[in-house]
């Protein structure tokens, strides 16, 4: 793997496009070959997930608002306290305020969580209507939307795993290998200095990120979602044992959502930093402009 990676990037002494080189001759900036990087299955499932995760997030927050508290255990404590997150509104001498309690620490979140809207028409909801579908309180509709896109997301996941196993995407770009770990410190350093290499394959950090999404976060959010179904708990009672109870599963479902949102933010930032046009092109047409010095291979375009 280390051999492959070093081929992608210009070796130590090779001329990388430096600032003064490009300012002297901006026209003759060297280009790497245009490689066919993303198969139709990768691209198709990517955009299906974009739509799914958008609707799943916003309808999920709608569902959360029906009972804006998270617990650890089988049940929700009403006569005892096993909550780890609680969003609500309280009356204070200064008027009503939004309040969020996380692991016993209470924060004033007026305007965002617990209480939002305008001063004339305050809304006492967990998450504000701006980030829920529908924008008003409607649990029934939130569930209709959530389960539709839940099925769609899982279907796309099956298609992706099958296609990526067959076409080698999984082995080439997702599953980290020993060589990737050796390359990791340098890759982290390069990312920290925003020296992004556009190779034929994914860099170690990319591999690890997508591995975490496909082998940890997606399975986790699907399985914890299923654990909330009383029917599924009858069919697969091990789900309750695996996650330590239905309410813990609900908490993990929420936590995984937060991690996926963080992934999304970093993902978008990296696309912008790595060159949004090239990155978008590769996810639409499959063709990707590599860094100068990338060795050409059969099937590449100039």
């Amino acid at each position, binding site marked *: 793997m280390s051999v492959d990676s070093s081929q992608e990037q210009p070796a130590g002494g090779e001329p990388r496009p430096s600032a003064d080189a490009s300012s002297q001759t901006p026209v003759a900036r060297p280009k790497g070959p245009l490689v066919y990087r993303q198969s139709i299955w990768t691209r198709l499932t990517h955009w299906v997930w974009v739509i799914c995760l958008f609707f799943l997030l916003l309808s999920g927050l709608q569902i959360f608002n*029906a*009972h804006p508290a998270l617990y650890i255990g*089988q049940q*929700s404590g009403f006569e005892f306290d096993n909550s780890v997150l609680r969003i609500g509104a309280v009356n204070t001498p200064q008027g009503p305020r939004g309040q969020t309690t996380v692991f016993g620490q209470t924060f004033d979140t007026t305007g965002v969580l617990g209480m939002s809207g305008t001063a004339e028409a305050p809304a006492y909801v967990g998450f504000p209507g701006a980030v829920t579908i529908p924008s008003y309180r409607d*649990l*029934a*509709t939130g569930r209709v939307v959530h*389960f539709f896109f839940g099925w769609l997301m899982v279907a796309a996941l099956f298609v992706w795993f099958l296609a990526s196993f067959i076409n080698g995407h999984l082995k080439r770009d997702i599953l980290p290998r020993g060589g990737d770990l050796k390359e990791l410190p340098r890759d982290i350093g390069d990312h920290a200095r925003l020296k992004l290499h556009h190779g034929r394959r994914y860099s170690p950090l990319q591999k690890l990120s997508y591995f975490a999404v496909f082998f940890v976060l997606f399975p986790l959010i699907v399985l914890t979602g299923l654990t909330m179904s009383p029917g599924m708990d*009858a069919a697969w009672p091990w789900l309750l044992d695996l996650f330590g109870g239905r309410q813990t599963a609900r908490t993990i479902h929420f936590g995984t959502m937060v991690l996926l949102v963080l992934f999304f933010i970093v993902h978008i930032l990296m696309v912008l930093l790595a060159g949004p046009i090239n990155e978008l092109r590769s996810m639409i047409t499959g063709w990707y402009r590599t860094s100068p010095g990338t060795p050409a291979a059969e099937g590449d375009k100039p």
Partner: protein
Amino acid sequence: MSGLIMNRRKLLVGSAALGSSIALAGCDQFNFLGQRGHPVRQALEQANVLTYRAQRALIGDQTLAREYAASEIRQGMKPNGSTQPTTPEYTFLKMQNFASYKLTIKGMVEREVSFSLNELRNMPARSQITRHDCVEGWSCIAKWTGTQLGPLLDMAGVKPEARYCVYHCFDNIQKSLSGEIFYYESSDLVDAYHPQTILSYGLNDQVLPVSNGAPVRLRIERALGYKQPKYLHTIELVDDLTPFGMGKGGYWPDNGYDWYGGI
């Protein structure tokens, strides 16, 4: 290079502005999904049919919901929905401690049958400590005691053309312009004949309180709380759910919730 950085900065600012405006305005744009009967919503609702079929195929008809140890009962059963029906009929029954209460099984049966509360209490009893999952998201563990519905249906003799049980309740859950709306629910015969489906009259070793559905509440343990009708008085066997309420098979299904309720 500096030109490129400026472009990226502009792009960052621009996409942040675009993103936040989509987020702020975005969700009003999908409010049409809240319209019951909108064709797009009806298409999305088909996922619930898929869920029902998939779970029926995956889960054995007799597979039990988890039953918990007595130590897991850590609190009283949280009352939700109707907690105090106010009709004269129910008030009268409650005043005389449900002495004249009758549970009737009718519709597509060989013979209509009725049972008093004492008759139900004298039938073979089943106690189960189960987790009640509300559609809102919370759960509560409690011990339910009652008699299985299946043998009672057999006493009435369910006709082969019957496909659903409709559960009629005493509670006037909503007042509308055309009068009071009474709670009702329905299930398929798989749920009706499930071994844990009991007509419960006891909760946590006490007589079932009014706030939890006295005198009789049906338990369908593999479904959400709204499939466990309280204040039950009549079970009607039918082959079609459309004549009842708004035609979706239950008070909450009429209000947009999925009928199956196993998820």
